[in-house]
């Protein structure tokens, strides 16, 4: 357990509504990530953050935005949800493997199951 929580854990919403998912970490990690998991696709990176107010796009960023105003929280927003965004969303952090090694390993939160009707 890398001290990662996600909220909500489950959400059902309607097409066209805004949705915000929250990822919270307690161990002051610099890097945070949002992935989505879909059958047959594994996990795909949506956005990531390398510090407060520092974010960048991943492989499947269209339709999503993120914000990180404090180290511990990384928010994922769907401005206008669509049925294609029905998925399980995972937050992750990177933790250093050995001080100064430049090597990291990622740990994942419990996930948020989002259904867009």
């Amino acid at each position, binding site marked *: 357990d890398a001290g990662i929580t996600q909220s909500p854990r489950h959400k059902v919403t309607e097409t066209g509504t805004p949705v915000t998912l929250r990822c919270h970490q307690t161990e002051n990690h610099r*890097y945070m*990530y949002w*992935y989505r998991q879909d059958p*047959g*696709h*594994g*996990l*795909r*990176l949506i956005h*990531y953050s*390398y510090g407060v107010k520092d974010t*960048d796009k*991943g*492989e499947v960023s269209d339709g999503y935005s993120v914000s990180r105003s404090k180290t511990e929280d990384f928010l994922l927003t769907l401005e206008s949800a669509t049925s294609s965004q029905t998925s399980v969303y*995972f937050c*992750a952090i*990177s933790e250093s*493997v050995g001080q100064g*090694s*430049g*090597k*990291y*390993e*990622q*740990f*994942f*939160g*419990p*996930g948020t199951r989002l259904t867009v009707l």
Partner: protein
Amino acid sequence: AQSVTQLDSQVPVFEEAPVELRCNYSSSVSVYLFWYVQYPNQGLQLLLKYLSGSTLVKGINGFEAEFNKSQTSFHLRKPSVHISDTAEYFCAVSDHQGAQKLVFGQGTRLTINP
């Protein structure tokens, strides 16, 4: 950019039999390699990783994997599986730069039959 191919979407085996889950990757730069396991209705748990050094890496629950640079493979093995190993397994790769973003394979569903 990297890509990962898991060659089998489903692998059924009998309990106490050996198993190998295959993973091939593509990259123009040096990579780190990972296997994650996802039990039903749970999140992802790191099973093992190759970062450097010995190409044979051992992980939790009796799993091991071998990094083969010439064949660009990182196959996962266990000599004797248990019912509790039933799960989905994901191979992932990252480069050595900055954010070390993970690229995942499609996953392999391992089913253990009694």
